[in-house]
């Protein structure tokens, strides 16, 4: 289970990094606040 939780945590950190950059790009491109994120 430790391995599975480690995989989930690594994915969470990766998504967090992406989200920050994506929100910045979204706001710059659309002029709208990026206040909704969905992770598949």
């Amino acid at each position, binding site marked *: 289970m430790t*391995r*599975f*939780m480690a995989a989930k945590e*690594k*994915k969470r950190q*990766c998504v967090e990094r*992406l989200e920050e950059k994506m929100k910045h790009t979204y706001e710059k*491109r659309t002029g709208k606040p990026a206040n*909704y994120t969905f992770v*598949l």
Partner: protein
Amino acid sequence: MKRLDIKLINAQSPYKVEAADEENFFEFFTEHDVHYSVGFMPDDSLMQSEAYHLIIVNVDNRPSPSDRKVKDTVLAIVAEFFDKNNTTLLYICDTGDGKQRLRSRLFERWFSVYDKKALYTSVTSSVVDEEGITNYATIIVRNDNPRLVEIIAEFTSTISLLNQKP
């Protein structure tokens, strides 16, 4: 992981895909102004052999509308991944909002209508983690992977072990 060819992705994709800053990640904007990132994160926890986690994130200022071109764009990226890399793809649904079953069904539906699905073997299973949360995990492997049987066996055995009570 071998580098994917953006031109080949865009030849199949309804939306224009570009390389993202993060290595092995790609991004696109939909006609509804939804920003998507799709990419592949190396797995170093679950599988012994080379494997990557498929990660799909979207950013919007409201819940995003349904858009079949998103599915076709994601599948174009995944197809190029498998064309260049005969390796294992893992997909563990996000559990942050409790809608992981919905995500798993959506992904299964996308894959079920994929015109090249006969080239792949996919297995979906669930794991209840140490926080009591049900997780849905899917593995996808090309049928011509010489280690197909071992990889699927490793995945099912790992899931089975994870589901055993201590």
